[in-house]
């Protein structure tokens, strides 16, 4: 079986400008932050980011990597709003395709199932339809109910972070919620999973019940071992959210240019190992 291990920088080297990148996790929970940091280090630009948004979206906006965000919300959970996303929206520097959260799931599922649309009730009557004139409704052939015809949200790339994976791309979450990471992988052409640690397949199997093996080999093209790779979002039970660090991020992002430059200089100007070292040093 293929050994799919690679580094975060190798993953990002396969991406190109203008791609549609789906990012797993949810808000400030189990985000593939090491992969996001690798994008920050790269020259990539003009990305369309599809996300249940958190600081992944914020950091990519801060670094000027984003052309458009497709999202249901962007939040840091314990802090209501991500300041960088907010700034990007208020300065008009990114396009926004804002959907109901369930519509986002539905669009990913339509892509995963290779369907032209899936019907959903969410969106009717709200401004979702008014703000996205490309959205259409569909009338039931079995009655006259009209529903939103949610089109597929096809991804060029999916980036997700799980607790454990083997070198072939089987992967397991250990926390309470899988979020939508399997769906992101199914909706994407190229799929990359980072994990806290790579385990042998037997070890991976022994870590819990089979139903928590969220990803299988068919769904993954590359495996990145990235301990602390979801930091500063939560990755339970390996670690919770680093609340002081998240506050420091939000404060630096909300303050003046110097504060942000200092944050970037301290944490984001080197490689992943430098980042993890700086985090440990405080």
């Amino acid at each position, binding site marked *: 079986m293929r050994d799919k291990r690679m580094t975060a920088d190798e993953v990002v080297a396969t991406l190109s400008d203008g791609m549609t990148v789906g990012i797993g996790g*949810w808000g400030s929970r189990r985000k593939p932050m090491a992969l996001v940091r690798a994008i920050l280090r790269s020259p990539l630009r003009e990305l369309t980011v599809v996300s*249940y*948004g958190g600081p992944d979206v914020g950091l990519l906006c801060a670094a000027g990597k984003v052309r458009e965000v497709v*999202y*249901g*919300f*962007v*939040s840091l959970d314990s802090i*209501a*709003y991500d300041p960088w*996303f*907010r700034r990007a*929206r*208020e*300065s*008009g520097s990114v396009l*926004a395709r*804002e*959907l*109901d*959260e*369930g*519509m986002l*799931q539905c669009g990913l599922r339509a892509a995963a199932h290779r369907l032209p649309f899936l019907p*959903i*009730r*969410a*969106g*009717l*009557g*709200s*401004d*979702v339809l*008014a*703000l996205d004139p490309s959205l259409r409704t569909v009338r039931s052939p079995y009655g006259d109910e009209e529903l939103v015809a949610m089109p597929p949200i096809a991804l060029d790339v999916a980036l997700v972070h799980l607790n454990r994976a083997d070198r072939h791309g089987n992967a397991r979450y250990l*926390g*309470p*919620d*899988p*979020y*939508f990471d399997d*769906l992101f992988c199914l909706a994407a052409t190229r799929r990359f999973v980072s994990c806290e640690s790579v385990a042998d397949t037997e070890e991976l199997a022994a870590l819990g019940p089979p139903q928590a093996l969220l990803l299988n080999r068919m769904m993954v093209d590359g495996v990145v071992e990235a301990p602390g790779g979801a930091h500063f979002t939560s990755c339970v039970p390996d670690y919770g959210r680093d609340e002081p660090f998240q506050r420091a991020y939000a404060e630096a992002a909300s303050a003046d240019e110097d504060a942000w430059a200092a944050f970037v200089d301290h944490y984001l100007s080197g490689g992943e190992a430098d980042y993890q070292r700086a985090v440990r040093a405080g």
Partner: protein
Amino acid sequence: MRQPTRAEVCVAACADLFAGDGEILASPMGLVPSLGARLARLTAEPDLLLSDGEATLLTASGVAEGWLPYRAVFDVLAHGRRHVVMGANQLDRHGNQNISCIGRHERPDRQLLGFRGAPGNTVNHRTSYWVPRHSRRVFVPAVDVVSGVGYDRDGGRFHDVHRVVTNLAVLDFGGPGHTMRLVSVHPGVTEAEVVEQTGFELAQGDVAQTRLPNEAELALLREELDPRGLREREVRS
């Protein structure tokens, strides 16, 4: 027992939102609605289901009784057995709610959360709102972006915007043409004060005084549900 505070009146009013709901998922967002839902389960609505705010359904005594990851929440809302209490940055007299942004959506003056689940919630099952600071900034003639669907739009056959609880009053949509109506004012609040803080004309019938939580409810709230009194920070007396 000490007189109920304003925050405690609000918690009881939030508990009353779930009256008659039976065996459905209560999804309160924010502290006061969460305390209200838990209070309802310990009193009049023992069959309510409540999550820990993440992926686990907990019994009243904190035992995990079920799994409810986000993907399953979308199944529950489509199935309809849910009553959500959302926040609102803006609400209008028809019950349209905005949590998306202030100003023009293409370039907002203030970016907020985004649509979140508001469009899906409001067309699938009963929805209520909690507003901790009742003001003309929130209660506006017209919302900037319709996240939650109001009664002047076609919300379909499951649309059911129930009530709005604020730090001043309880409101519903029993006014002419399903417009917002003042149901009760909290003790110490006048009708004039609510009218003054609302940016559109409120329908008013027989306005009552919001009920006080009884001694059993106060004991549960103060000793069990919120012994640290965090509710007092969300609503000042």
